[in-house]
């Protein structure tokens, strides 16, 4: 069984805690917090022992969800994977019911979270249930924390989905009856790619998912029709050319028309995955950006790195944030740079680990940006091998999947329907030589 549970912030504050074993106090978390602050290379492993206590934690939404396990119990024998999975599910439930999970919302909704924890960790014994079943046992009300307006995003602006672009909407499912009537359909894709110097893609894996979140009372049936069919079979005739190697539909989804139409019965406030797919390796991958670079010698001691980043996403799309990290040659002392293209660009150099970071904010689709970076003292024939590209692009997906039609039956008046597309990078490395 778990002896204690807490939610801690990155600064080491405990935002919420429950102690199940009567002999313990909040001091049981202090070894964990000291381990967090003292770890030199990032976070400690998900399960570790310190000062005689076994800690297991997950890191979600910038918060640490920590459990202290009592050794020798059956839960301990089941292994740490059970606890990490359960903590992850607890986080999903809490974020579904609380809306946004931030430090303010947790402290404001302590009662609600306390009730959820009680239901799912009854006295320290983990018994997680699916969110919809759990919701029927929750009696607390959610308190919308008053945040700064920068965080509350209108669905038209993107890039404000922080670390988990999968969450469709930032509303709590507990206020379905009284909140706005809204429906969100999100198509989110993650790109993991390796690109060579000429721009050819060496290895790429694009995984995508279509998620739906519906804030309507009752259980109306939602029908989506797409511009391409979600299936692994090759399509005949004219098609968008989207080829998928794996398609996995969520539970309770009815698939029709060879994968072009899907329908599902919605549950108020719950996020449902319609499908998860992976693009086939021979899909004509159009990565959202093409990066080319070259190094040339300016003087015998300095080299210049020229980088050009072209956006392939077309007009109307925007990337709120694009970053390119590259390791400078070992002897580089400093850099001087100039950029052209979008207004908000910065090039910074970190002397400790010799990394150059080129950041572009609000990069409009279809344009290009250039940076000329002078590497001081790097040697005339220095070269830069490869770098990492991080981006988020809204209103565009690699696969070209488009949701053409969204229908609810029975028909609901005054419904706001939002369809959002987002592509994020999950490790895109570009070789420059």
């Amino acid at each position, binding site marked *: 069984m778990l002896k204690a549970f807490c939610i801690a912030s990155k600064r080491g504050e405990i935002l919420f805690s429950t102690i199940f074993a009567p002999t313990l106090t909040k001091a049981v978390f202090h070894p964990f917090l000291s381990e967090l602050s003292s770890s030199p290379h*990032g976070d400690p492993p998900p399960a570790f022992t310190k000062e005689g206590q076994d800690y297991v934690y*997950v*890191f979600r939404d910038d918060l640490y969800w920590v459990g202290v396990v009592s050794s020798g119990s*059956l839960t301990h024998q*089941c292994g740490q994977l059970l606890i990490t*999975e359960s903590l992850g599910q607890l986080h999903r439930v809490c974020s579904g019911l609380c809306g946004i999970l931030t430090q303010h919302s947790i402290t404001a909704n302590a009662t609600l979270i306390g*009730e959820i924890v009680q239901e799912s960790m009854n006295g320290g*014994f983990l018994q997680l249930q699916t969110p919809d079943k759990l919701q029927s046992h929750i009696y607390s009300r959610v308190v919308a924390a008053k945040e700064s307006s920068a965080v509350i995003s209108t669905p038209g602006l993107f890039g404000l989905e922080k670390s988990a672009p999968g969450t469709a909407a930032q509303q709590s499912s507990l206020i379905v009856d009284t909140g706005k009537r809204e429906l969100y359909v999100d198509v989110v894709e993650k790109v993991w790619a390796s690109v060579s110097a000429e721009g050819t893609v060496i290895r790429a894996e694009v995984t995508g998912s279509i998620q739906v979140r519906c804030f309507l009372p009752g259980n109306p049936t939602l029908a989506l029709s797409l511009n391409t069919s979600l299936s692994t079979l090759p399509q005949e005739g004219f098609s968008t050319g989207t080829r998928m190697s794996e398609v996995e539909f969520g539970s309770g989804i009815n698939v029709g028309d060879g994968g072009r139409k899907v329908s599902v019965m919605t549950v108020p406030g719950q996020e449902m995955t319609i499908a998860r797919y992976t693009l086939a390796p021979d899909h004509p991958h159009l990565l959202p950006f093409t990066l080319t670079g070259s190094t040339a010698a300016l003087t015998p001691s300095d080299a210049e790195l020229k980088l050009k980043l072209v956006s392939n996403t077309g007009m109307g799309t925007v990337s709120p944030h694009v970053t390119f990290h590259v390791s400078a040659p*070992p002897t580089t002392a400093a850099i001087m740079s100039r950029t052209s293209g979008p207004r908000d660009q910065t090039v910074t150099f970190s002397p400790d680990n010799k990394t150059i970071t080129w950041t572009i904010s609000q990069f409009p689709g279809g344009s290009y940006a250039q940076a000329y970076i002078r590497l001081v003292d790097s040697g005339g024939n220095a070269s830069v091998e490869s770098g990492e590209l991080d981006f988020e692009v809204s209103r565009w997906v690699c696969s070209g999947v488009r949701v053409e039609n969204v229908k609810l039956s029975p028909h609901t008046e005054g419904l706001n329907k939002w369809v959002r597309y987002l592509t994020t990078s999950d490790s895109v490395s570009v070789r420059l030589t």
Partner: protein
Amino acid sequence: MVPTSPEKKQLLSRMISGADLPTSDVVELLASHDTLCKKLTCCHIADKCHSNNDLALLTANLLLRDASDANPTIRSASISALAALPGIEESAVRVLTSALSDQAAMVRRCGALGCVKLFDHAPEAILECGLTDALYDGLRDSDPIVITNCILALDHILQAEGGIVVNKNIAHYLLSRIMQFSECNAVYVLTILLRYSPKSEEELILLLNALDELLLSRAPAVLVAVVKLFLHWTQDHPHLKKDMLEMIQPSVCKILSRNVSETSCLLLDFLSTLGDICKVFGPHYKYFLVRAKDPGYLKTQKLKVLPLISTEDNVCCLMEEVKPFCSDYQSFRGAVSCMGLLAKVSHAAHNMCLSMLVTLLDAPAERVVIAALECLMNVVLSPPSVEKNISESPPDPVLSQSSSLGNVEVQNQTTLEESLSQLSLHTEEPKPELKALPMPQNELELPQNLTDAIIRALSHEHVQEAAPSLVLYVLGTLAPYLDSAPDILQHISSLAFSPSVHADLVTAAAQIFISRPAQTQLLLAAILARAFKCVGEPASRAALIYATLQEHPSDAAFLLGATVKQSLRSNNEECQEQQLGGSD
């Protein structure tokens, strides 16, 4: 739901945060009709009753009344609270017994866990009143969560006797229903089934068939539990392991591709304990690759597991993928030692590793250079074998990530002492038998750019100061290939160091002398003389070396574990004998 007044809300939030409330407030909250108030208050009472004695007395009646309320939520909340209150054991037992046979599943669940709470403060009550039998009956309930709660309760209560007893009936019954259990509950069931062993072959086959469907599960905790159970039951049939690995391979790859850091880390940790997984997982290596955005612990874990899935086909791709991480400040140690292990797989990998080491040895940060030197020794001393099997490779210097220096010293010392202990035993025989010491191959070929890079790396003052033992070890072992070894040795001998490093200095000097007697003669003499003046280990090491060179000059090279190039061997021995005669 009746809206709660602001004062009540405040009291509730204080309760949740664990503060102590005056008893009168608690009683008032308990008496309210609001379900939420009652739930939270009951929970609070259960927590605080041990420190607050009045609480039990004043609330017992209210709770007993609520235990037969119409609303199952209220019933279960009050039952949980009652079970924790001291002083009312008989009523508590009565209430729990009726709870375990209640109509609502929620109440039965709480009843089972309530037994745990009662046991914690009044163990005799449970054991005497036959609640354990009621819990055993609960194992046949229709609701899966009730079953798991009964299991948890029984395990806790019977902990003194070794936990719940799983006999054949229970095992078969639970397995037959296991597909109805959700992920978390299934794991509990699978874990307690580890305590049961099938008695006959047919029974084993039946049980394994029941597990088949679970092996395809996509839930990581369930998958790991099933694999553990499978391996436990098939201990006598190791050939089934490969089939099982093939069955779980798609699920494992799917779980890894979702890239949840904690899950991937723990799953990879589990995979590394499964033994030989390279044949099954080798072709799917792309799921095991390190990504730049992974947290530090995940990168380290993946770099540990990558050598386990390397085969001749994929090792070059793996090396290309690991290369960029060798200069990453978080994970360079793991990356470099991973490269070292991968280099053993094939000759192509070996050569790739050596060429990559050339770049690394020139890195500006001395920690990277040190890691590269360790990897170099690892790679050079155990060249690749044709059939790759990492687990069977010869015992190389085990280079841990935290302190390799200690291990290197130990390695050096044990080699020397082993050889010298043989010396004392076999003084009679002119040629002692060749024991299996980790001797480098005579045909070692090091490319010129690598030797240049090694010399550059070893000449750095920072490296010499940061890792003197390692530098001396490299100097000594690779002496025939490093032309300026005596110069570096001279430079090091002018630095200040601890006794153990001094002893290593003496060893290294001897090893370099064996391959380059003319250049090192005077230096060796000076070092030996200095060592004799120090008390302790350096002096004893120096004495041993002096004795070796005196008495067994022809076998000195072998005994001192020095590398000697084949063609020069005979020349060296002649030179040695002349020099020793001269320098005495």
